[in-house]
């Protein structure tokens, strides 16, 4: 605080003279090209857009900021003014901190502007939820750390080669660090590039039904703050940095920074995939975050109502249209669900970086029964085009629904296979000839007659007491 108070006029001067501000328009342009375009290409969900922003924004700002800070740190040496300014009343450490603070300040201003615009666009487009602040906080916390890294390099090695080489080295370390992230070696999750389970990637299934876990962001911010303190404190340890008390303060800051960075890395090392798709760190985890978030579902008035989480409201027409033919067939049958309801995905990690995503329990639950639906977009993987989404829902969710209804979810009998093919209107080419004939016979019936027959025989079919010959 003493240093900061003493250096305010100097800080204002450095802010006016700092060339980092001239680098802001190109940085903003690269942010738009990489972060903004990529983020807004995702569906309007806070989770995917904010989390992808964290990764890309760090990539955009880090090399430029490291280079700019290194450049500014070597200013006195480049201009041959080291001896001249050494005899000024201001301690060297204080002067250096003012330059670092000005460089960081300009970068933070640009960051806040860029992220502010992006968040405003997301807020306008998202159907549900509010801003996820932790990805923005981690990105902001990385800027002082990268500036300190470049600044320390520039002070230690003032040369015209320092700025580009340290910027590229920082970028190399940053990009390659994510290569080393594994379930069994999770310390590298402390990298600010990591917004969630790295092996899973961008995933629409997280932080919607359950909270965005702050565990990993807290560890990352602690690490970045510690790294910043250690690097800046280290500059105050050298002879000539200031008086004895100043150097002792610098030593204390350095030690505290190193401890914080070490502890945070240790925390990240204990991070594991939690059932809701986020990284949970036992030392930081709040059990209250495991409670589901309440919401009012959005529904479509189909033969059986289809209800989705409001965040996925944009998918509702496509999902309802995809399921409508099957729902018309099964509505009103004994044991048919009264509602199709979107469920939260459950995540399980396995050995060798494997993971599984699926429903937590059976597909049909409750009395009266409700069919639990997992959207394909809740599963990790690339964004699917609408037609692909519709086709997948019709094929997978429709088949699952009918399979549960006719009791064919495990080792279906020929009669069950035939009825499934008739209800789903799928090809009979893969069925054996007798089953195919039975399926075609049932398919050829008028819809009302088929529905009546199913209502009469569904219980026997589900109990596997129906043979192919008994199918009309």
């Amino acid at each position, binding site marked *: 605080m003493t240093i900061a108070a003493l250096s305010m006029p100097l800080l204002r001067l450095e802010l006016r003279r700092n*060339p980092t501000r001239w680098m802001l328009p190109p940085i903003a342009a*690269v942010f738009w090209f*990489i972060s903004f375009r990529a983020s807004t290409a995702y569906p309007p969900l806070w989770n995917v857009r904010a989390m992808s922003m964290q990764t890309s924004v760090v990539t955009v700002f880090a*090399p*430029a900021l490291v280079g700019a800070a290194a450049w500014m740190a070597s200013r006195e040496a480049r201009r041959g003014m080291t001896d001249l300014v050494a005899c000024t009343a201001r301690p060297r450490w204080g002067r250096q901190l003012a330059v670092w603070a000005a460089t960081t300040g300009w970068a933070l201003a640009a960051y806040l502007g860029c992220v502010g615009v992006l968040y405003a666009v997301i807020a306008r487009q998202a159907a549900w939820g509010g801003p996820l602040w932790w990805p923005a906080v981690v990105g902001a916390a990385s800027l002082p750390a990268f500036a300190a890294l470049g600044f320390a390099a520039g002070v230690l090695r003032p*040369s015209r080669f320092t700025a*580009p080489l340290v910027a590229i080295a920082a*970028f190399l370390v940053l990009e*390659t660090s994510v290569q080393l992230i594994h379930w069994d070696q999770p310390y590298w999750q402390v990298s600010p590039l990591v917004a969630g389970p790295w092996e899973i990637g961008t995933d629409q299934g997280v932080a919607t039904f359950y909270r965005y876990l702050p565990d990993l962001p807290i560890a990352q911010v602690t690490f970045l703050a510690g790294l910043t303190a250690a690097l800046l404190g280290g500059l105050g340890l050298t002879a000539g940095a200031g008086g004895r008390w100043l150097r002792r303060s610098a030593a204390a800051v350095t030690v505290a920074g190193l401890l914080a960075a070490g502890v945070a890395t240790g925390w990240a090392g204990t991070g594991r995939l939690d059932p809701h798709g986020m990284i949970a760190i036992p030392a930081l985890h709040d059990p209250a975050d495991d409670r589901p978030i309440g919401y009012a579902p959005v529904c479509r008035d189909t033969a059986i109502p289809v209800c989705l989480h409001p965040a996925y409201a944009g998918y509702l027409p496509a999902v309802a249209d995809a399921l409508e033919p099957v729902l018309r067939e099964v509505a009103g049958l004994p044991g048919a669900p009264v509602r199709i309801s979107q469920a939260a995905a459950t995540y399980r990690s396995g050995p060798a970086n494997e993971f599984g995503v699926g429903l937590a329990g059976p597909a049909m639950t409750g009395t009266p029964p409700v069919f639990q639906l997992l959207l394909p977009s809740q599963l990790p993987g690339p964004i699917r085009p609408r037609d692909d989404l519709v086709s997948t829902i019709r094929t997978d969710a429709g088949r699952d629904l009918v399979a549960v209804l006719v009791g064919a979810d495990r080792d279906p009998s020929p009669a069950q296979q035939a009825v499934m093919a008739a209800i789903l209107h799928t090809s009979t080419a893969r069925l054996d000839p007798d089953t195919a004939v039975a399926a075609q016979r049932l398919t050829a019936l008028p819809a009302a007659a088929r529905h009546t027959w199913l209502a009469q025989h569904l219980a026997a079919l589900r109990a596997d007491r129906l043979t192919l010959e008994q199918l009309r």
Partner: protein
Amino acid sequence: MTADAGGLPSARLIRLFLTGRRVPAALAAVVACALLLRIALHWPWNTYGARQLPLIIETGCAAAIAITAASPFGDVERVTGRWLPLLRLGIAVALTPVAAGALIVAGTGVHLAGGASEVLRNTAGLTGIGLLCAAVLGGALTWTGPIAYLVLGVYALYTRWHPPALSTPWIWPGRPGHDVGAAICAGLVFAAGLALITVRGARDPVGDRG
């Protein structure tokens, strides 16, 4: 600036010029980059990382070469001799293949993603960007262009696995090594950088911003 009676620049002039432009330091940086690449290539990389790594190292080489465009003397040097443009051209023309060659040699015997053609194309194109920055922004800020382009290039590589892919040949790191359009674009940028730096030199000969 001095010259032999025959009109050619003397060896002493060339040596002083190279020293003034920090060419030995640039060569040391290129060798360090090549060694780093060699060491890094012994590690297992996934496909994306294997393509990123050479690009990042190539950017380091290109930035080091572009930095040699900055003159510590400025106008004083500009009025002392007619060999200056040729010497500026000579440095860039000589260092670029040296850097590409060093990286190709570093990748010999191990898997260098993209191969020699990508190394040559990327190094030349990135050096061209650095030289353009030297001529337009000034010798002090030559590194900003290659680093900004590196971020774009890495993103272009990323989009190869996460469509829609960036397909413009002007972002050549995203294109395969045999892509003619990308090679032409990189070559044009290199030629433009060479031409500008030969004719005009770096923009701010004395001092620098910041």
